[in-house]
């Protein structure tokens, strides 16, 4: 996945443990299939767990994934 910017501001990426990447300052996010998704909010969350139904955005499903993993390890 890559992101593109048009305006002269810096793009920052913040990693959330067991969660998404927070991206600020990007204009578009281009997914694996090459489709561009417009960024319409000040900060977007990109799915890292591969289970989101709103990919490339995170939809909170990673919490279910981590909870299942926690249960398996118990």
């Amino acid at each position, binding site marked *: 996945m890559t992101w593109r910017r048009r305006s002269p501001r810096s793009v920052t990426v913040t990693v959330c443990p067991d*969660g998404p990447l927070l991206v600020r300052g990007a204009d578009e996010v281009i997914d694996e299939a090459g489709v561009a998704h417009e960024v319409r*909010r000040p*900060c977007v969350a990109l799915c890292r767990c591969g289970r989101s139904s709103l990919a490339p955005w995170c*939809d*909170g499903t990673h*919490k279910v994934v981590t909870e299942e993993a926690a249960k398996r390890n118990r």
Partner: protein
Amino acid sequence: MRLPEPRGPITEALQSLRCADIGVAVDHVTAAVDSHTSPLLDCDDAQLALWLLYELHYQGFDDVDPRAEWSPAVIAVRGHLERRFEAELRELTRVEVEKRLNIEEPIADRLFAMMSDDDSPRLAQYVQREITTTQLHELLVHRSVYHLKEADPHTWAVPRLRGRAKVALMEIQFDEYGAGRAGDMHSTLFARTMTRCGLDSTYGAYVDVVPGYTLAASNAMSLFGLHRRLRGAAAGHLAAFEATSTLPNRRYAAGVRRLGYGDEAARYFDEHVEADAVHEQVAIREMCSALVSDEPECEPDVLFGAATCLALDGLAAGRLLDSWRGGRSALLRPMVELAPG
């Protein structure tokens, strides 16, 4: 909006707000509050009283002088109700807060753990699979108390926070208010959902039929937002609100579609899945973490605010499900009687 109908001696004593006089009879109201010995949390009359006193700071009432907002008598009465309300909220959440306090773990981990351990009644599942059209309308009526002023209570906290915590809160709130597009404001999206479902989306239209437990959830946010002293609780409350949103909203959207309402009606819920997946991270990892590291004295209240959000949401979910499973309306007057005509 006009001042709501009284529900008991406290709101009865507040009817004088309708008169040209901007004061209220403090002794009269405090006596009515003191004569109520069971919890205010469960009292329709007290919660409506608090709600209308707070509402003076939001949109106000057509039949109340706007100067009443800062009338010393009105503030005195509100303070009298708030002291008991806050004490009850602290008692309600004491065990949960103590369990998470003073443990050597980052505040973000403790907050996420609080959410994932929460075992509130499963309202979202019911909405997805079973809710009827009338019950959905009732749910929207309940939710309209907060959602038509969505984000406003936490915005009070902006000037009360500093540095990184303030920046994080502003980023969330800007998005809540449509990120520069009036049509995308979350309160506007909610109003559109109400309209699509044939409901009146006028601000405050249904307050007269909403039970105290739903008003209490809104009142807690106003309490936290309006007191600088409680800024930690405002931050914690918002964090819990955002972090318990994505999965339920996905189910709500599915329920709305199951009942045959289209994408326009479901859009409010769809938007919250995407937006709150961002907001929960920003609220917990950035806003609450920054606040606790910059102002460690706020830590207990961050937990208190978060636990209050979960407790009151859980209480409301339980009451709604009890009513509906028992074949009853969850409003003070059933939806059919409210139909326009």
